[in-house]
């Protein structure tokens, strides 16, 4: 839809960070990749679609931030005084940080669609999408929702064993 396309229209490249395995460093890499690109002068955003275990807010020290709405949708949380990186995560929507998000697939899918189409990212050179481990609802929904957009590709993370 035009509205969906609009919010990602200003994003030049979308990169997915994946792994089958948990705990290999996806969120760590997503964060470092975002920071490195920002240091290189790029406008960067991170979309954290790990709904059960959102790690990015703490990694960027914005775990206490809240999300606001504007006319075009949700305003991402901007990291740092110079608004270096734009970030969206379910971590910002929880009442308490220890609240478990105990959702079945369909509810997760609905939120992911919203995260993709309803966040006012603005102009970004790179949007990095951090994912949970596995090959299930979050992954299927994220790829489906991002397909009409500028999906550059996936970086896969592993450890040696």
């Amino acid at each position, binding site marked *: 839809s035009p509205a969906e396309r609009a919010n990602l229209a200003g994003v030049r490249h979308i990169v997915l960070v994946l792994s*089958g395995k*948990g705990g290999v460093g996806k969120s760590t890499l997503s964060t470092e990749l975002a920071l490195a690109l920002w240091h290189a002068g790029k406008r960067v955003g991170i979309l954290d679609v790990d709904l059960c275990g959102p790690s990015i807010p*703490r990694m960027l020290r914005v775990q206490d931030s809240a999300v606001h709405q504007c006319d075009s949708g949700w305003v991402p949380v901007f990291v740092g005084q110079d608004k270096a990186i734009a970030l969206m995560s379910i971590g910002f929507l929880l009442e308490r940080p220890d609240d*478990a*998000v105990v959702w*079945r697939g*369909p509810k997760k899918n609905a939120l992911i669609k919203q995260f993709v189409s309803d966040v006012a990212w603005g102009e970004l050179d790179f949007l990095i999408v951090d994912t949970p481990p596995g090959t*299930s609802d979050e992954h299927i929904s994220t790829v489906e929702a991002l397909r009409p957009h500028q999906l550059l590709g996936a970086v896969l993370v592993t450890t040696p064993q």
Partner: protein
Amino acid sequence: AEAVELRARLRAVRHTVLVLSGKGGVGKSTFSALLAHGLAADETKQVALLDIDICGPSIPKIMGLEGEQVHQSGSGWSPVYVEENLGVMSVGFLLSSPDDAVIWRGPKKNGLIKQFLRDVDWGEVDYLIVDTPPGTSDEHLSIVQYLSATRIDGAVIVTTPQEVSLQDVRKEINFCRKVKLPIIGVVENMSGFVCPKCKNESQIFPPTTGGAEKMCQNLSVSLLGKVPLDPQIGKSCDRGQSFLAEAPESPATLSYRNIIQRIQEYCEQHHLQEEKIM
């Protein structure tokens, strides 16, 4: 009718332990496998290990059962036996190739989990250990729901010392409380590393916010034990061998054995209490 079926199938299971974590890669599958091996060391006990990590089933490899297939009989699916008294079931055994991705949405995963409980002929089981994927989603809701046909003794929650893990584990503890699943306790893996050459201890994953110990204090759950990093653990898992058998003198083995004993005591005690009440 379904509930009746499940109850019938699970009637012969004496103790059920769920191994959970909010976080991935902390050692759930490793721990589940070693718990199974540890309990099955007593040849009078029948142990069942059920792997409900549908997307990333690690148990077949860790138990040295890669390439095994599941057989059907009149009484249902037959588990794959590592020892006479240790049977295993995993989606891994149903794949034609180990690299096949199981790209399923929640409802299909739930269906398979139900089949695992309803159609597998476990027989008489003293301990059913259920290894889970990371998170608090379909698999976790379903297993708690389906196992309400029997009694779950409790959950063992696995973590590593760093805050990035603990923040997910606190959610898992809250999940357990939400679904009224008793928590046997928390295991802290990768808790320090002692160099075999120089014997110096390093904190590879520093407990910047107090580690599992502080979290357990704050949330009033039991800390079952801390297990140090030992490169042999990963090697044994990759080779499908029991780390406890391959490295009996390792400090990690001692930790694991203590933890396994505490879990056994918890289960036995529960049983006695229930019998008293009845």
